[in-house]
């Protein structure tokens, strides 16, 4: 193989030609997204499907969803480095990369999403301490730096780079300080996951999103943290499963996957307990106080089915499947449950972003339906594709999975 010296020792990889075709496909998608991005930067956000009613749309939903699912990074780090669950070393590298991709991808879309990207740094310079979004801006950017720092030693593990003493030393030192970064990351991530939820909970002009809370934090603050840590681990695990099916090689031991499923399952139960409590309090407290009935929060498009989908099919069902050992020991059920969990979080982020804005609050206003257009899909696909490229490269050239050789022996 042409790139043989770059591959990790003792593993098998597909031919460079095949790899190149795969990467070319992904690059094509990136180019498609880049064209859309060019149009957006060139003419303005008017070329997207966003509008005055839906100032937030696919991008914000995508950002919030990937940030929640990317929580696998900080949470696995927290479990491994702080709580010392060593089993997770089998997947921690992937968790870091997935986290890095989720956050960097979200950042890319945010740059597109704001009307004045050149002023993005105003968030630091003119920070409004009262805004949940300020907290998000600070934490996301800081955490992205942390994730970058966590990603660097993984890159340094490459066979050729590792030969250089400077990098070898650097990697070693990084590993020593990693628990510190894991702790910092946990702190940062915890806060912005919460703040993202808080962003919606504080919208007292939008009864669908509005929540009461504790001190300055509306309940959504805590619910977003819980749902993120419940879904993050299984999302990382699903990525590893996806990689396995693409590469047709075992990468992560099933026991690790099961462990992640178990962790997610328990957290999901806790989350759902509070989420049901919250939904009940909202439907019987916040809504009538604002003059709305529960039924008025839904229409034919944004129907109650979304709520039952989120809480039932993508909530209670996977929670049971993940908690009951006999169920999660079956790979098919474990993966299905993991997928449903992740889907539930996506639905949750979607309704908070889009349904909140679709509901007419003024009695003489009307429902609107948001349909993202191709520019939003293309740029979102670009981020997915960019992530696939990085994961592919990382898998090919970096020793991500300590058990890979053993599992495929």
């Amino acid at each position, binding site marked *: 193989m042409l790139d043989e010296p770059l591959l990790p020792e003792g593993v098998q990889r597909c031919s460079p030609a095949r790899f190149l075709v795969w990467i070319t496909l992904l690059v094509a998608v990136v180019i498609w997204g880049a064209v859309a991005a060019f149009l957006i930067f060139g003419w303005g956000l008017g070329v997207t499907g966003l509008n005055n009613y839906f100032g937030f749309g696919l991008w914000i939903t995508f950002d919030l969803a990937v940030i929640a699912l990317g929580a696998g990074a900080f949470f696995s780090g927290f479990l491994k480095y702080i709580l010392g669950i060593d089993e997770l070393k089998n997947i921690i590298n992937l968790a870091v990369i997935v986290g890095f991709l989720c956050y960097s991808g979200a950042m890319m879309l945010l740059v597109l999403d704001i009307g*004045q990207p*050149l002023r993005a740094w105003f968030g630091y*310079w003119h920070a409004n301490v009262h805004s949940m979004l300020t907290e998000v801006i600070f934490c996301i950017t800081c955490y992205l730096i942390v994730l970058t720092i966590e990603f660097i030693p993984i890159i340094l593990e490459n066979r050729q780079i590792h030969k250089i003493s*400077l990098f070898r030393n650097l990697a070693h030192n990084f590993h020593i300080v990693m628990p510190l970064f894991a702790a910092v990351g946990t702190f940062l991530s915890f806060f912005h996951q919460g703040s993202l939820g808080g962003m919606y909970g504080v919208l007292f002009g939008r009864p669908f999103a509005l929540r009461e809370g504790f001190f300055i934090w509306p309940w959504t603050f805590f619910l977003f943290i819980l749902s993120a840590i419940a879904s993050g681990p299984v999302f990382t695990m699903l990525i590893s499963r996806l990689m396995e099916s693409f590469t047709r090689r075992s990468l992560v031991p099933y026991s690790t996957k099961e462990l992640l499923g178990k962790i997610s399952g328990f957290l999901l139960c806790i989350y759902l307990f509070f989420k049901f409590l919250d939904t009940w309090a909202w439907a019987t407290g916040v809504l009538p106080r604002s003059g709305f009935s529960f039924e008025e929060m839904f229409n034919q498009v944004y129907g109650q089915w979304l709520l039952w989908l989120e809480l039932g099919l993508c909530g209670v069902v996977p929670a049971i499947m993940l908690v009951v050992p006999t169920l999660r020991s079956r790979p098919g059920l474990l993966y299905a449950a993991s997928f449903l969990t992740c889907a539930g979080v996506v639905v949750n982020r979607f309704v908070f972003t889009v349904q909140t804005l679709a509901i007419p609050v003024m009695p003489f206003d009307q429902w609107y339906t948001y349909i993202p257009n191709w520019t939003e899909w293309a740029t979102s696909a670009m981020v997915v594709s960019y992530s696939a490229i990085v994961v592919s490269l990382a898998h090919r050239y970096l020793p991500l999975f300590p058990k890979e050789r053993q599992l495929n022996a």
Partner: protein
Amino acid sequence: MALDRRGFLKFVAGGVIGTGLTPLPWKLTDDISIWTQNWPWIPHIPDGEINSAPALAKLGQPEYGILVSKVKGSPILARGNPNHPLSQGGIDPLAASSVQLLHSPARIRQPMRKKNGAFQAISWEQAIQEIAPKLSGLKGQKNKVACVSGDETSSTNEILAGLLQGLGSEKFFFHPGETTLYHHIWQKIMGGRGHLGFDLPGADLVLSLGPDLLESWGNAVSQQYLFGQGTFRLLYAGPVQNNTAAMASRWIPVHSDALGHLALALAYHILKKRSPPRQNLSGFRQLHRYVRHNYTPLEAQKKTGLEEATIQSLAGELLQARRPLVLPGSLSGSCDVSGFDLYCGFCLNLLLDRLNTAGGMQCIPEPPKVVPGAPSWSKMLSGDLLAELRRIAQGSTEAPELMLFYESNPVYSLPDSKLTRKALEKIPYKVSFSQFMDETAATCDLLLPQHHFLERLDDAFTPFSSAAANYSVGLPVLEPVHSTRSTPDLLLDLSGKLELDLGAESYETLLKEKAGLLDADWGKLTSGGMWRNNTVVSQDRLELWNDRISRMLGQDRERPDKYQVHMVPQTDRRTGSPRTAIPPFGLKTLREEELEQNTFFIRLNRQTARKNGVREGSLVKIVSPEGTCRAKVNLDEGVMTDAVVVPLGFGHTYWDQFSRGKGDNALQLFGIRCESGSGMCHCSTPRVRISKIEAAR
């Protein structure tokens, strides 16, 4: 190169701190925040002292004084003028767009001549060389030159009519509208003297029989002001809950062809309860007999579709009021009213003793004449353009050789556009003085663009519906933006070349003379003031009954069976006036249920929709005997069953991007109806058919 960990970290840290100490990042961020505020493609706002100048809004009815704010001589805003009695600080959305219209892409920038079907720019000298020999060649030949003016208040009319007279033509016409129609009925049919005005400020009860007086009839701005002050109780009878009806204390739903009948039905009760009017009215007995006979409660119910109690209570209100005023007129503020309806409304006022009295109908004297050769004001008003065009189209009258269009766009704004086009095609040479490339200008051979009204000196004598004679003068507030010329001055120049004496050197001396005759202070007039005189003309030969009237009352209306739905035209100043199209800022005020992309909406109620098989948002075809329009359906329960509201002002084919191709021109659905008895031609509001257009591919 040996670089240990410490060294590396030092290098990185040093780099970061070092860069931070240089001005680079700080300068860069500072620059970014400045750049992002000053992109070169974003227009900059002007700087300088702001002052304001009085001006006169001359965009067609209503006309009133406004104030124009300027920065360094350049107008930026038009506002109401609190000191002008016809505005009292209010402004309508069209006049508020005056300043933007100065820079409309539709402005004609210089004289143009049509050659091989396309316009080419020419100089003013060339333009005069083109028109002068043509006019001089027609001089002395009877009625070879005709003129249509759409400005009912300007002294330019005298110059135009005087010029025509000098050339040997009597074919001066006003663009048909309420002024000409009211004049026709009042003077020619009823033998009245003077011109009718309506003293709304003095009334305590106003019953509008059709006119949308808070939107399109008369001086809506002034009427809105009075309404806001709450000086009168407002009752509205008409087929649609328009803005006037919505604001009124009561809306009495009546189909538009029953409004005259309603007036006579009310007259029945008034005649019963009240002694005859003080004024000795000839024909009172005949009318009395006619009404007592034909408008018994049972007949009235049949004719108006209203319950007897409704009519009775309405009559009761009129009888109880101290100063009631009945307003008959057009639903759209143009020529869609029959002589019958006007006559009935006038009669009701007369029976209520509401002539030349506070809060009643006022007979305003003739304005003074300053162009010696010009016909009298009454003579100028008596031309019937619709009848003339009909005759020309039918070939019963010889078409003139040359026609002048001043502030008038008949191709767009007259009913039966096919007939109008046919008539105009027979005229070999047409000249437009329009400021804008409108539908009529596009058919002309020579364009001699007039200044925009903010660029010119002009006047307004007693705009339609005024309570008393009044006179306002507007001075130009800026230098002309384009190479345009004042039409009256151009005509005075031309008259010199044609060796005609119109009695004035310039338009300014002419207006000063007029002010002098009125005994008005020129200084006050030109600083935003208004002259006013409350003199009324007493009547000595007014007739409530004569042959023509009895024929007018006796006629039946033809009702073709396949057309079931009453069409109700509606005018909205946001979509412009018969003289202008949708102004730039007006377009954006049209709601989603008024115009969607390039399709406009008609309004009808659910029952009518069901009957016609259409639904909210259906794309439909509206068919009248005269034409077809395409529109979408907006369900509105404020429309009578079997009626459909069709807004006017859409469907321009010229003008600019703010009006071209926006909706259809509903005027093409209207016909021209020449009433027997009154002999007056007016725009008929036909019945129409509505059918769903199958999903267009």
